[in-house]
Each structure stands twice: as C-alpha cells, then as structure tokens.
C-alpha cells in the first residue's frame, strides 16, 4: 500500500512516500524567511506546491494521504478522517490556535478531492487525554490543558512497548519531547494522562519560559514594560535559552560552554535541572515507570542527556530516542486503519 505522509512544521515541510512501512522517498524542505512572512493559512499554495513537486508522479499512485494533526479543539488521540467540517474549522479559524500543522489537513483534503483517495490526520497537537485530577489548576478560570507533541510522544510509547514486548495498555512511560518547545508527558496505557508544557507550566526550554512565579508575572504584565505580544513571546519563541543567551540553538550554547562561558553553563544546567524536576513530578503517578524516554532534537545533545540522566537514573531507566519519528508514526497509524486494525475517528465540529 502506497501512502503519502506530510508533516508541515513551523519552518519546514517534511514529506515521505511509504510502501507499507518502508520509505521510498523522504524530503524535508526548509522554508525561507520570506516564504514564512505571511500568516500560516496564506502559506497553503506555497507548501502544497513543495509537496507536489517532491512527490511527483507518486501522486497518481498513492492509496492514501495522511498528515500530522494540527491544533483543532481538545480531542482524543488517534487517526481522524479529514473531511469538510474539519477543513471548514481550520479555514475559518474556528480552532484553538493557528499552527503550520493545520496546513497539512488542508493539503491532505485537497489531494483527497483531486485523486479520490482517503485522507487522514493523526494524533493532533490538541490531543487531550488528561485524567481528571491533572486538569485542575489552582484557579477554576484556568483549567490545565493537555496540548502536547502527541504524534511523536504516542509513537515513542508504542515503539518502546513493542520493544519491551509489553502490551501498550499495561505500560507506563514518561516521554520528554525536547525541541524548541518542550513537553514532559506521562503516558499510561497508551494515553497521555498529564503534560508539563514549557509554554505553560513546565521547565523552560530553548524557546519557551516554562512555569513562572505568577505574582511576579502579574506585576510584569501590569508594569507597561512589555507589550502583550512581547509577553506572549516569552512563552513562544523568545523565552528560556533564547532570552537568557540570545540563541535557541543548543549547539551554539554547548559551543559557548566549551569555550568557558560560565553563564551559558549555568543556564544550560538549570534547564536540565528543571526538566529533571518535571520528570520527577510524574513519577508519583501511582505506577512503576517502565522507562523515561528522551526524544526530539534536544535528545541529540549528549550533555543535556547526561545532565538529566544523573538526576533520573536512581529512580528509573532512561532511554534516548533522538530525533522524532513523525513520518513513521503517521504511516504506521494510517496503516492500522487501512488494514482494519483500528477504526478512524470522525471529527465533530466544535467551531465556536
């Protein structure tokens, strides 16, 4: 079975053509600043063009197209059919946030129409399977949310369970996805039951500020020192390493540490310290943790991994799965549906 998998990220578009589980073609196109200067939805034609160019004649032969899931509304994880109602919600902005991944839904729908093949989207970022206790914050006005890197996180958990020959339903993992943003995820029985997200309340990350003292933050909010947009960027793009050190590249930071930059050293260690604390927080979930999985681009940093492992290894096994396996995850999930092992879910329109 031939599947086209697409994964639009914030600065790149990744695609692959797979014959069952085997990749035949893989491409990742980095976009220019110019291309990205327009709003996300306005990038549709440009991104679609990239995918069609790369996929070439395969487009006529594929049996299905499947995309990484975007930010819709809080929903269960799994494989969803891409249909008109989902596309309408994305197009009309009736979703929780605009994210490049939402373009994947639009592109998949376009291909579905033109070639009359099924289109799917897998494990949306807005997957929300938190257990009740994890939803409660210190204020009823602000429930905790489960938004996370669900595609890669769920895939890593599935893969690890297979490796351990343990049914996914009986396994408990803590999966840490370390990219520009960062999420620490408690995955129990294949579902993401609690999340510490660097954009909300977790550790700080290369680009996000993590949890902050709310009274101090309130003062900052009302101080007129920063605009609302600037404050938003503390959580999206310009917090954490970026704000402390002027770069969100871990490679750069590690270079500076090697050259003897004390400040870079402290901040990098403090980031690892915060990540370790968040992992420790999930160890109280009531089950034995089968393993702590470090994944995402950040897990390629040997220094970061060793700093975190030092804190965690007395409590649990740490496994490093560098890079994300998003295309593979999209394809595997889609294949389960095409083979009838799992049923595709239907998106229920929840436009506001």
């Amino acid at each position, binding site marked *: 079975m031939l599947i086209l998998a697409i994964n639009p990220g914030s600065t790149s578009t990744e695609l692959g053509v797979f014959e069952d589980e085997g990749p035949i073609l893989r491409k990742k196109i980095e976009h220019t600043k110019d291309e990205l200067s327009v709003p996300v939805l306005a990038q549709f034609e440009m991104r679609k063009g990239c995918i069609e160019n790369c996929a070439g004649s395969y487009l006529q032969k594929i049996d299905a197209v499947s995309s990484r899931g975007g930010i819709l509304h809080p929903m269960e994880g799994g494989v969803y059919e891409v249909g008109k109602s989902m596309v309408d919600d994305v197009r009309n902005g009736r979703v929780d946030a605009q994210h490049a991944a939402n373009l994947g839904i639009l592109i998949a729908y376009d291909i579905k129409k033109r070639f009359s093949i099924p289109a799917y989207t897998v494990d949306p970022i807005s997957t929300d399977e938190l257990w009740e206790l994890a939803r409660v914050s*210190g*204020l009823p006005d602000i429930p905790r949310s489960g938004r996370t890197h669900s595609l890669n996180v769920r895939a890593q958990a599935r893969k690890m369970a297979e490796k351990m020959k343990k049914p996914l339903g009986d396994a408990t993992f803590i999966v840490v996805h370390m990219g520009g943003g960062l999420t620490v995820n408690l995955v129990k029985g294949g579902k993401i039951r609690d999340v510490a997200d660097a954009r909300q309340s977790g550790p700080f990350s290369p680009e996000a500020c993590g949890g902050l003292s709310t009274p*101090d*933050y309130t003062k900052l909010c009302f101080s007129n020192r920063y605009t609302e947009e600037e404050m938003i960027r503390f*959580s999206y793009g310009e917090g*954490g390493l970026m704000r402390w050190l002027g770069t969100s590249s871990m490679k750069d930071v590690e270079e500076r540490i090697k050259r003897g930059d004390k400040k870079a050293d402290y901040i990098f260690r403090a980031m690892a310290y915060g990540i370790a*604390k968040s992992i*420790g927080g999930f160890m109280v979930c*009531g089950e034995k943790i089968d393993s702590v999985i470090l994944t995402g681009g950040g897990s390629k940093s040997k220094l970061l991994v060793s700093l975190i492992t030092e804190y965690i290894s007395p409590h649990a096994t740490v496994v490093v799965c560098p890079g994300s396996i998003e295309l593979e995850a999209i394809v595997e999930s889609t294949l389960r549906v095409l083979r009838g092992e799992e049923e595709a879910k239907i998106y229920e329109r929840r436009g506001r």
Partner: protein
Amino acid sequence: MYVLAINPGSTSTKISVFEDGEEVRKNIIRYDRDALKDKKTALEQVEMRGNDIEREIEKWGIKPDGVVGRGGLFKPLESGTYRINERLLKDIMNGKVRGEHISNIGAVLAHNIAGKFGVPSYFVDPVSVDEFEELARFSGIPEIERIALQHTLNIKACIRRVARDKKRKMGDLNLVVAHLGGGMSVCPVKKGRLIDANNAIQEGPFSPERSGTLPISAFLEMCTSGKYTKSFLSRRLVGEGGLVAYLGTNSADEVVLRIKEGDDYARKVYEAMAYQISKEIGAMATVLKGEVEYIVLTGGVANSRLLTDWVKARVEFIAPVLIYPGENEMLALAQGALRVLRGEEEAKEYR
C-alpha cells in the same frame, strides 16, 4: 531557664513563656478590626502591641532569661538563631525588608521587652533563610528570579525532630519536607540545608488559599483580557486562590466534611491538591538524585488523614513518609533561643 517567645500575627500576638523547653505560660492577645483601623502598617502597631505584651508579662511575674521574636521578610540569611542588633532594627524601621508583613516587627517587640529586663533577644530561622543551590535560582526569563522564601522555622524544626527520632545528625540528613498550610513549601533537604523550594507564593501546588503554579499562557490571557484589575488577580493568586476559589473555604476540615457528605466536586478538587503536592514532592526528590531518606509531611493540613493518605500512596516509593502534623512556632522559637542560651550553638550576627 525562662524564654519568652513573641509571635505577632495579622490579628493577634501570641506570647508564651517556656521553662527549659516546656511551655509554662501562654496567651493570645487579639485585635479586632477597630483596633487596627488607624494602624495599617506593621510599624504603626509596635507601640500598641508592645504595651499589651508588657501588661501580660507583668501579670505573670516571671523574669525571662532571653526573649525571642518571630523573624520577618528580611534579606537572604543563613539558617540559625540571630542576636537582634541595631543594624536589624534600623533596617526594619527604615523599611529595608522585602515586603510589608506583620512578622517584620516580631524582632522589634522582642528587643523592646528584652531591654526592660536587661536580657538578650533573638530571632530564629526567618522565612528569608536562603540555602538555595545555584541552579535553583533560574526561571525561564531573567526578569523573574526564583527566590528562597519558605516556612523555614517549622521545616528546620522538623529536620531536628527527624534527627532526634531517628538518632541521626541534622547535617547528615537528606529529606523532602512538605509544609502544608494555608501556603505550602516543599523543600529538598540536602545535609540539613534547604537547597530548593517552590516558594509558597511563587509556584508549586495550589493550597487552601493560593493558586500555586498556573498555566502561564492561559494566565496571560486573563491578565490582558481587560476584565480583571491587577489587585483582583493578585488576590486570586494569594488569599483567594486554591480551595477558596473552588470551594469558597480555606478550611481543610470543612472540605473533608463535605466530601464525607458525598460532595464529589469537593473530593475532586481536594484530591487534585494532593496530586499537585505529590508531584512537587516527586520533583524535589529528583533534585537529591535518589538520596532521600525520609519524606516529611507537616503543617496544619497534614492533620487531614484523607489528604496525607493520598499523598503517601503516591510518594511512598521514594522513601518512608513521616507525618508531623501542625506546626509549633512558639516552641521552635523558644528552642532556638535556648540552644544559644545554653551555649549549644552560637548566635549569628545580622550584618
């Protein structure tokens, strides 16, 4: 040997006399709203509260060998018992403290009474004791520092108690101590020192009156919505957050009662509080890299069996859980002074 302990709270002053560590006299001098109406700041209340204390002491007819007052929001200090000196008094009188709080005048009251008797005066383990390790100080933006403020007096008293109960030296103990009160402090203790803390105001689990860590992006929306004033939001964070925000009460007893009567919503909120406390304990245990000998639950909320059972079930795998419910500030203060008066410990100098 007699020690007089003075502990000013927002609407009362607690005073006790201890004879060699045993409380032999105690009283609570209460103030209603009217009495405090024209004296809003702590400093304005020094004279009134001082006179009232003197009157009570005279009735008791006991001459103390030393006087100890509760410490305040002073500058970052080492842990220990401090002699109250001119330098401290000057800082307090000139407002060189880290915030307005009634505890700031504990030292002034102690000093004044001690002067009458010609005996030394002390303060012990104030909230501003700072033993943080360097990495604990960084948040995700330089504008906001993680600051060492915690329920030091009770936490240090608990560490001493573990040392006594388990026949260990305080300086050898690695613990996680969770002070569970109206505010909550969860501290990893490394060789007797408090190397990190959620800071009962800055972050951590929500508590009976405080909201603790909140999803910050969502909170920003609340701040910028234009629907709320700064002072409303500040109250929602400290004073009217947590259990108060959900259930309209800051009393754990009341919540437990409602749960017994079958209130499922109260149960969910209360159990979520236990879950957050457990997560904070788990997080702080990690800092000690696996070397945790005991977990201690203390403070008023540790009287709630329902809550401590929930927490215990979650964190017990880390280390055995000791429950030291309540807090005895008066005794902890008196013992701090006694250790110095008996020459077991040297008083520190506030500089």
